[in-house]
């Protein structure tokens, strides 16, 4: 009697272990292609050439490690375009963050004429593909370029102009996102603060903003990545290395005239990826808490 029960228990224990391990097995298998991809990129950047997944030298023997792919770091131009990428990313973080927080709050809390229409319009605007707008944007940027002072910062063929366009394209989504976060906040907290003696602005700054911090952080991260990786807009509206950015710079390695230097492309790509990887490693806990109900409770 007893032994059989034990056996059954042992069996079901084992069975349970197998079942609980299944998700990990499935996840591990499905992640292999991605890991292999990363592995190749890293190997490729340090080798002369690759054959399959192995680095090889000029004669096709395994080996051939080299730093020549990273030589682009010595080119002052890389630092120029990196700075530009960074400026576009930061411009988007600040621009979209600031404007969508204010607009989202107003749309969530205030009732004014044309509110509904405005909400609908932003949604429609977001549906427009930026490709469709390129010519129109080009005209606008040319016009801005004609304005003294402002034209030097935000006109055609300036980093500011690229950031301006990117911010404008990203705003509808940002506004809707922030409006959603504000909609979830109780009105009572605001009323309490008003009665406690705060001005409207202080209520927004001291009481409301801290509640949507996780949302704002998410928005900032997405915008940083979008700005950092921007390609279409800077490629279209800038000419020459002075104002171009990393993605555009990367593209010139796979130009039409010379054969693509894949190992070098991998190196520049990895270089472009590094800040984002580092960023993720340090912020993954915050990032995850956004989805784990970080906006609530607020400990």
């Amino acid at each position: 009697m007893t032994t059989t029960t034990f056996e059954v228990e042992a069996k079901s224990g084992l069975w349970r272990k197998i079942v609980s391990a299944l998700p990990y097995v499935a996840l591990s298998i499905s992640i292999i292609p991605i890991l292999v991809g990363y592995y190749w990129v890293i190997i490729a950047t340090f080798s002369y050439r690759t054959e399959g997944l192995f680095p090889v030298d000029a004669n096709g023997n395994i080996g051939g490690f080299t730093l020549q792919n990273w030589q682009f770091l010595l080119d002052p131009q890389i630092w120029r375009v990196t700075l530009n990428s960074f400026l576009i990313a930061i411009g988007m973080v600040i621009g979209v963050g600031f404007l969508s927080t204010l607009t989202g709050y107003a749309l969530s809390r205030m009732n004014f004429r044309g509110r509904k229409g405005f909400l609908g319009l932003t949604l429609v605007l977001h549906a427009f593909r930026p490709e469709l707008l390129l010519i129109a944007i080009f005209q606008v940027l040319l016009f801005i370029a004609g304005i003294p002072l402002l034209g030097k910062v935000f006109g055609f063929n300036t980093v500011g102009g690229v950031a301006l366009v990117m911010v404008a394209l990203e705003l509808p989504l940002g506004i809707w996102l922030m409006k959603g976060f504000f909609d979830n906040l109780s009105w009572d907290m605001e009323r309490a603060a008003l009665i406690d003696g705060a001005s409207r602005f202080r209520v927004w700054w001291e009481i409301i903003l801290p509640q949507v911090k996780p949302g704002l952080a998410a928005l900032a991260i997405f915008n940083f990545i979008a700005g950092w990786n921007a390609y279409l807009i800077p490629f279209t509206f800038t000419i020459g290395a002075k104002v171009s950015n990393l993605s555009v710079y990367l593209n010139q390695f796979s130009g039409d005239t010379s054969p693509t230097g894949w190992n070098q492309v991998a190196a520049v790509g990895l270089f472009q990826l590094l800040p984002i990887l580092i960023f993720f490693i340090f912020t993954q806990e915050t990032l995850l808490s956004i989805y784990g109900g970080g906006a609530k409770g607020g400990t």
Partner: protein
Amino acid sequence: MKVELVNLTKRWGDVVGADGINLTIEHGEFVAFLGPSGCGKTTTLLMVAGIYKPTAGEILFDGKVVNAVPPKDRNIGMVFQSYALYPHMTVFQNISYPLKLKKVPKEEMQKRVQRVADMMGIGHLLDRKPAQLSGGQQQRVALGRALVKEPQLLLFDEPLSNLDARLRLSMRSEIKRLQIDLGITSIYVTHDQVEAMTMADRVAVMKDGKLQAFSPPDELYERPKTLFVAGFVGNPPMNFFDVEVVIENGEYHARGVGIDLVVPAERGEKAVGRGKVIMGVRPEHVSLADEGASGVINIVEPLGRDDLIDVRIGETDVQLLVEPGLGLRIGDHVKLHFDTENVQFFDPDTEKSLLW
């Protein structure tokens, strides 16, 4: 502070929040706003607080119209049902926030917060965040935050309805004691009539945005001015019958389907000769008897100290309380005695009392 509401009205398009409210609250008085959900209690309170702008009418503090005064300059404290604590601030920061906004010096702020917190029994929790407190403790923090700036008017919006029954009971007496000690004029919104009746000096009963009655609790109970007030105040609620009052042999009789009661002359004479009227009798004035109106038991509901039974007489259901353990069952035939000394009469069309 004396508070006057003159013809106070709030509308959103077709939706009526408050409709022509007129009442005066004396200095130091504790007034409860009582009414069913959606009757406009919160709306009225938020207008007094300055959060909602009245569509029409005036609010006067000590004789001065304050319609245009922003909330921060009204010197009021408010406690919300949801507590409305600031989750990112500690208890100390929560309570001290009104003082910080008033630019009270650090040292004095420290002292005042500590005093209020000790008074509320949360002096040891000042470093916690609201999420680390129980519901009762959060409510005390909210109360402390409202009290710390020593307001001249305290507003409560169902502050206890999220607490469990026992805590509600003790907080109720605590708030009442505090209000008496501090003597601050208070408006207390609730849909719990026991809360309103036990705490308030006067109760304002509201329905559909309109003020139905405004009087001390006992008067509300004994001399309800409208059918709604009579039915809303009191638990279990008053029983109503359709009757006609007639004089026979010099006595006033209230007659309806299945009942014929002799009523006191001074009450009966106000209802006589009006055709159909509505008669109200409170459950405590109905009892089981050997003689009287006969009916059939519909429902037996044990309440612990009493059993609530529901007896069908003619077309009306009559509720009364009986001592438990009588072995009554659904379907039993019983006879009821009505103590008519306190009967009420209402006009069925206007629903106004014929007596008061």
